[in-house]
């Protein structure tokens, strides 16, 4: 089973829940692996006292201009939907950071002057602690295109841990990286907080997941602050509320110290039990 932990709003607790949930499941004997797909700022490893055991360079394919036979016809720029190719009077310029690796320029070039070549965009790291394995994608500084790295991280986990349950820690928001982190999952858990901001961004995330035909459930974090807008919304939209994690300063303190929470705070562990019971009921 593959479960994505996502949210519209940032800072609602994706990493807190995914790292604690994976650790707790592993401690119960479940074969589970955590994939940190927030490749622009992966930080799950900070909470897991884990050791780096393997790494793999992540590349994407980009066109490289070969001037030899180029007639500067400009077809390449014409077919690029992303402004990644610039047809100048005396040269063709490629902006690798804008390239979506669609191959159109390369395939349609009449003189084969834009061969596709690999270019590093990041790294995939595999960590292990005494309980379980965690894999993260980490985008290089200055890179703008996270989708290929997210896809490769998912692939890495699938190949190395075929019969494991997978927990994906997604990036925040509702844009392409979130979609890439959610589209192959069996279920998406959306974490929110019960504030107007939380509700606004939850609504956007729900709409996104519905376009993907994804099954969803909601976790309300820091329960006790804000208002009842999120609960009313979930009720009206028939979205299950999986658990409500109590607002607790101690949780924030542990998180800030890079510590796991479920083994120290009972009500947090109770919430994880509710999540596990919910997941167990999914089929």
């Amino acid at each position: 089973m593959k479960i994505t932990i996502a949210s519209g709003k940032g800072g609602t607790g994706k990493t807190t829940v995914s790292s604690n949930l994976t650790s707790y499941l592993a401690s119960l004997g479940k074969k589970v692996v955590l994939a940190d797909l927030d490749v622009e700022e992966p930080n799950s490893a900070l909470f897991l006292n884990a050791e780096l055991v393997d790494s793999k360079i992540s590349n994407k394919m980009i066109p490289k201009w070969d001037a030899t036979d180029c007639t500067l016809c400009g077809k390449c720029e014409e077919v690029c939907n992303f402004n990644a190719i610039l047809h100048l009077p005396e040269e063709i310029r490629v902006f690798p950071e804008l390239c979506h690796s669609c191959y159109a320029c390369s395939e349609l070039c009449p003189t084969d002057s834009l061969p596709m070549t690999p270019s590093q965009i990041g790294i995939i790291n595999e960590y292990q602690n005494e309980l379980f394995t965690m894999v993260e994608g980490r985008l290089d500084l200055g890179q703008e295109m996270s989708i290929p790295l997210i896809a490769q991280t998912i692939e890495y986990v699938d190949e190395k841990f075929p019969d494991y349950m997978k927990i994906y820690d997604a990036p925040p928001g509702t844009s392409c990286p979130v979609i890439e982190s959610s589209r192959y999952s069996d279920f998406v858990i959306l974490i929110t907080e019960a504030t107007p901001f939380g509700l606004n961004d939850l609504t956007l995330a729900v709409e996104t997941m519905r376009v993907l035909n994804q099954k969803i459930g909601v976790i309300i974090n820091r329960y006790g602050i804000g208002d009842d807008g999120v609960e009313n919304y979930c009720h009206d939209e028939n979205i299950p509320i999986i658990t409500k994690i109590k607002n607790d300063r101690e949780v924030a303190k542990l998180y800030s110290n890079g510590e796991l929470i479920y083994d120290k705070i009972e009500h947090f562990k109770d919430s994880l039990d509710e999540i596990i019971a919910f997941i167990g009921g999914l089929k």
Partner: protein
Amino acid sequence: MKIVFTTKGKTWESPMDARFGRAEMFLVYDEETDTLEAIDNSATEAMEHGVGGQSSKKMINAGANVVITGNGAGEKALKILKTTKIEFFTGAGEMSVKEAYEAYKQNRLQKQF
């Protein structure tokens, strides 16, 4: 010499546009023939990425020697423009085109490159 202004209109009285990549319009002043020619750049508004490169290409194709703008060229535009002889002057974002031209002539603008 050809001087290009990033503008929101087609005349000397038009306000400047402080942006380069997403400037509404480029107004090209040819000092030799004393003529103004407008190049529409509004299509960049709908582009998510890569406008710096597109706008830089327009400068090259217009035969610009000098570009006068407000905030200056961004990262991707710089990659293109630094390989040319085009000079960029900034700090004219709040002026009219005419004021920007006078400020340039009196050396009151900052040279970006």
